């Protein structure tokens, strides 16, 4: 019951929005109170008995599973921080609170769902409710971003529904563990498992921002209010990853698919850097950084899939270093990215003259360093494990990926430097009326950051910096199998440092060369506009066809049915037959005939 309570609590708070008296409480402190039960569950409950709810959806099973606790913790922490951040409110806070809480419910549920049906329901809840967060400001950019997001979300849902459907059939069960086992079964249908995996790669890939499916991400994350973009980028895109981890046969491995994912991830990581570093809006840069980092995580999933764990002894994931690294990566990136997004909000709300300003920038820089993987941070740990994951690949690929990995750190550095530069630049130009790229009205109006915003941001900052400490307390099983930070000598430090230096040089070069230039339209924008042109042409063609209902643009059923019903044949023949059928003597003759045939058949074929 505790499982359902934790998931349902935000919904309960959401219901309170309907009562005028407690509405302000629900829309204010309720935002950060809602995820607290989940936080408690993730912190203090280990294991626990799975919650089975046969009456809910299709036999719902709720439990931590292998990854649920970590994801639940991340979810709860980030949503709490976002709730504290949004506590001070803004315009339309009731509506914001509604979508916030519903999305939270979906997000919590997805972390705990152990069966396909409830996972799908929660996933859909999260995806569609997040639309309300994205378009919250109702500005043209937000609406446009929402449109793109919604289209891709719907496509993703359809792909996932199909994937889950087949996975359920293959495993003959709705549990993720059974589905994963069935996918790994070499005797099972190859074509079917390929179908399921490819659908799941695409379906979750949309959420995780895999290259080619990431278009919505750089649009939606900057458009949403700051608190919402923090959770969008921090935890919700990781849910795609969670889906992969749950569904894919990680133990048995799928080498081909592993390589596909690794390549997809790598190209996504590189591409996002290339597309992102010319952007001007700091939040857009952060979004591209998210795409890039998600690419690295996708690559890590690929490594795990490509190198089945039975190669190193035990056929289980308990001792898999790459998996532990990936989970740590999820934590690091989730917290860091949320801290960065909240930091943008804080920075924009901080007047330029205030001396705190430097502290804000310093804090952002510190988080950036963690994300880049500077020595002695959790990020460095992640980079090392990624490398060890690459080393388990077949020889040729392992060398290639090991060589390329540090280069991705260069890209991350570049993005981070550009981000800090844009922050500095945009707030320096704050006195100009249109100098801020902020989309949120509260950022514009407030001149001092609210206490809640600073509190949320500062808390996340502390968590990010001290991540190795508390993570080793909470998740000893993950941290213990990772190589320690100490005792590696100066070589590791140098390994961690040179990509950063290289990145700094590259960004310096770029800024020096590009000073004063306007925002170039990236490859993404070109692709998107081309797609849109094509789509609008298709739409125009459809709109001009006679079968389209001009008022709503859907199939004009009346016209269709009229067309068929008004045909000469339809006008006459069925009528004539029906009229015949309504005569007593027709019916009588048919009846006598029927009874005779019936008798004859029974008599002659019976016995």
């Amino acid at each position, binding site marked *: 019951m505790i499982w359902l309570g934790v998931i349902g609590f935000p919904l309960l708070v959401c219901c309170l929005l309907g009562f005028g008296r407690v509405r302000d409480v629900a829309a204010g402190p309720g935002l950060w109170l809602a995820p607290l039960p989940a936080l408690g569950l993730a912190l203090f409950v280990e294991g626990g008995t799975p919650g089975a709810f046969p009456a809910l959806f299709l036999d719902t099973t709720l439990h931590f599973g292998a990854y649920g606790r970590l994801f639940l913790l991340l979810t709860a922490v980030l949503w709490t921080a976002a709730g504290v951040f949004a506590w001070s409110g803004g315009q339309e806070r009731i509506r914001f609170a509604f979508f916030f809480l519903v999305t939270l419910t979906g997000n919590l549920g997805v972390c705990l769902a152990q069966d396909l049906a409830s996972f799908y329901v929660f996933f859909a809840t999260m995806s569609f409710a997040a639309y309300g967060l994205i378009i919250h400001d109702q500005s043209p950019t937000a609406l446009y971003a929402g449109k793109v997001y919604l289209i891709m979300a719907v496509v993703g849902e359809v792909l996932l529904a199909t994937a889950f459907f087949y996975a359920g059939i293959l495993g003959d069960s709705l549990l993720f563990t059974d589905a994963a086992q069935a996918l790994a079964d070499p005797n099972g249908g190859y074509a079917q498992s390929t179908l399921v995996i490819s659908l799941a790669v695409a379906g979750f890939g949309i959420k995780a921002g895999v290259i080619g499916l990431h278009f919505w991400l750089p649009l939606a994350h900057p458009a949403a209010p700051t608190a919402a973009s923090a959770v969008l980028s921090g935890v919700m895109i990781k849910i795609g990853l969670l889906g992969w981890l749950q569904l894919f046969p990680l133990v048995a491995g799928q080498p081909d698919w592993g390589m596909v994912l690794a390549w997809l991830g790598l190209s996504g990581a590189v591409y996002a850097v290339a597309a992102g570093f010319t952007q001007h809006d700091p939040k857009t840069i952060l979004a591209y950084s998210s795409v890039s980092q998600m690419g690295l995580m996708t690559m890590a999933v690929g490594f795990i899939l490509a190198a089945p764990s039975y190669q190193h002894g035990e056929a289980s994931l308990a001792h898999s270093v790459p998996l532990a690294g990936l989970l740590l990566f999820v934590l690091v990136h989730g917290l860091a990215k949320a801290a960065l997004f909240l930091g943008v909000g804080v920075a924009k709300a901080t007047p330029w003259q205030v001396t705190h300003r430097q502290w804000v920038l310093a804090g952002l820089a510190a988080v950036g360093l963690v994300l880049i993987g500077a020595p002695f941070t959790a990020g460095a740990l992640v980079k090392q494990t990624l490398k060890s994951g690459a080393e388990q690949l077949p020889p040729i690929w392992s060398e290639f990926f090991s060589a390329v990995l540090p280069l991705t750190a260069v890209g991350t550095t570049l993005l981070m430097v550009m981000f800090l530069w844009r922050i500095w630049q945009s707030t320096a130009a704050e006195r100009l009326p249109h100098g801020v790229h902020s989309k949120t009205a509260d950022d514009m109006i407030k001149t001092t950051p609210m206490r809640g915003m600073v509190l949320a941001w500062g808390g996340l900052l502390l968590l990010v910096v001290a991540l190795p400490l508390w993570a080793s307390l909470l998740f000893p099983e993950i941290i213990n199998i990772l190589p320690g930070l100490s005792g590696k000598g100066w070589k590791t430090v140098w390994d961690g440092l040179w990509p950063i230096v290289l990145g700094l040089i590259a960004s310096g070069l770029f800024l020096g060369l590009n000073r004063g230039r306007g925002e170039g339209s990236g490859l993404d924008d070109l692709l998107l506009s081309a797609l849109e042109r094509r789509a609008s042409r298709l739409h125009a063609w459809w709109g001009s066809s006679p079968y389209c209902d001009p*008022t709503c643009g859907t199939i004009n*059923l*009346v016209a269709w*049915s*009229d067309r068929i*019903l*008004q045909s000469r044949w*339809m006008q006459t023949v*069925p*009528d004539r037959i*029906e009229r015949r*059928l*309504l*005569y*007593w003597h*027709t*019916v009588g003759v*048919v*009846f006598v005939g*029927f*009874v005779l*045939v*019936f*008798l004859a*058949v*029974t*008599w002659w*074929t*019976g*016995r």
Partner: protein
Amino acid sequence: MQPVWMILIPFLGAAACLLLRGRFVAWAGLTASGGTFGACLAQLLQVWNQEVIRIDLGGWTTPLGIGLYLDGLGMMFLLLTALVGLLVGVYANGFFGRAADYRRMEPYFWPIWLVLWGGLNGVYLSSDIFNAYVLLEVVGLAAVGLTILSGTRESLVAGLRYLLAAMFGSLIYLLGVALLYAEIGHLDLFRLAEQMRVSLPTVIAFGLMTGGLLIKSALLPFHFWLPPAHASAPAPVSAILSGVVTKASFFLLLRIWFVVFPMLTVPLTGQLLGMLGGAAVLWGSLQAVRQTRLKLLVAYSTVGQLGYLFFLFALLAPSGGATRAEEWAVMAWTGTVFHVVSHGLAKASLFMAAGCLLLAMDTDELAAMPDMAGRLPVITFTLGVAGVSLMGLPPSAGFVAKWMLLKASLASGQWWWAVVIALGGLLTAAYVFKVLAFAFVPAARRTTNSRSDPHENQGALESKDAQAVRPVPRLMTLAALALAVLCVLFGFRAEEVIALLPHGLGLDVSPGGLYLGFSQGERP
């Protein structure tokens, strides 16, 4: 709780309604409805725990006594009748309280409807083919009485046609009963099943009884009485006729086929009934698409939807009903029972919604109801929800029904039924969307849409004056909506139905004999 109360309460209520005057009639009727519903729930509990109930009234055993028999299958039909009956009662209370024209019918409606209800319950409880005949006649006469309530010429003609058809069907059925009695000397379902033998009289009796019941259940070539009767009756009556009355003779057909005559069923006759059912699905739905009046459309949709029920015979006949332990048997049974219930609820809801529209707009011409969605949102929503169940879209009981039938037909290798089910679903979608399309057309665009038919156009223009929508009592719309929502909710409770059904059906009995499963229930 004796099952006989299920018959007695409505009959007593009918007597009370006859004696009372004024508003008391409605209150007495509603009380009796509530009482019957309560008795039905008590009965449900009993069947759930005790599996099968079998009693002889007054201690008289066969052949002279009247035996009652209740199993899971009968329980589902009783439950459907009670659900629809209760909500129709609530609806009728609002409907007949409206205008003087309707108020005039109220003192007639309640007693006849309660007699009809008692008769229906009796058919579902009867364990005797002759009692079933008498009760079926009670049902038929009462149904005709309800049909002609409005007293218009149209309804009188339709009612007489209905009466003649029902009488004809019953007499043919009685002919079969007479032959059977002459040959075997019993009337009890289970005695007959025990002593069944293949001989010319039993075969003829089988054919006649099947034929008579087919006429009464309006399978395709014998549906001539149904659309005019259902379309010309007042709305609550149409809901009753389409929702529950058509199911009574089908129920009896199930009993005849799978209890009395399993020895005589051959695959070909099953296929014959299935084919008629398939033809009904396609033809009825096609005719429904072509209608321009909402009530006729819904009536033809009943013809189509009833066809699905007859796939059961095709699916189960290959095993002769004798070894019904095939894996698809459970699916076919569940699907059919689900279809009975979902269609009953959805169709009653549709007719009630149509009645609301008729009250609000004074016409049920489809072309005359533009922008209905804007002006009567709850009714439009009801139409939509009920339509979803008719189409068999998830999540609704209709979906479960069609899904089960689809699975059963594929599992049994008779894939052609799957094709018919899919086509029927498409046609159903066509007429449901036709209604909804008219409902969502903005008022200004009405004339362009009805351009096709000058008659329609004229009607639409005439009704322009009566543009103002008259208010519909909240209770009526809510009753219709409640039925539609129940229909959807019912889809979530498949397990219980599957668990309830084998009680007395012998589904879990090893291949060896159908009626063995039934005779388990024959405990005093």
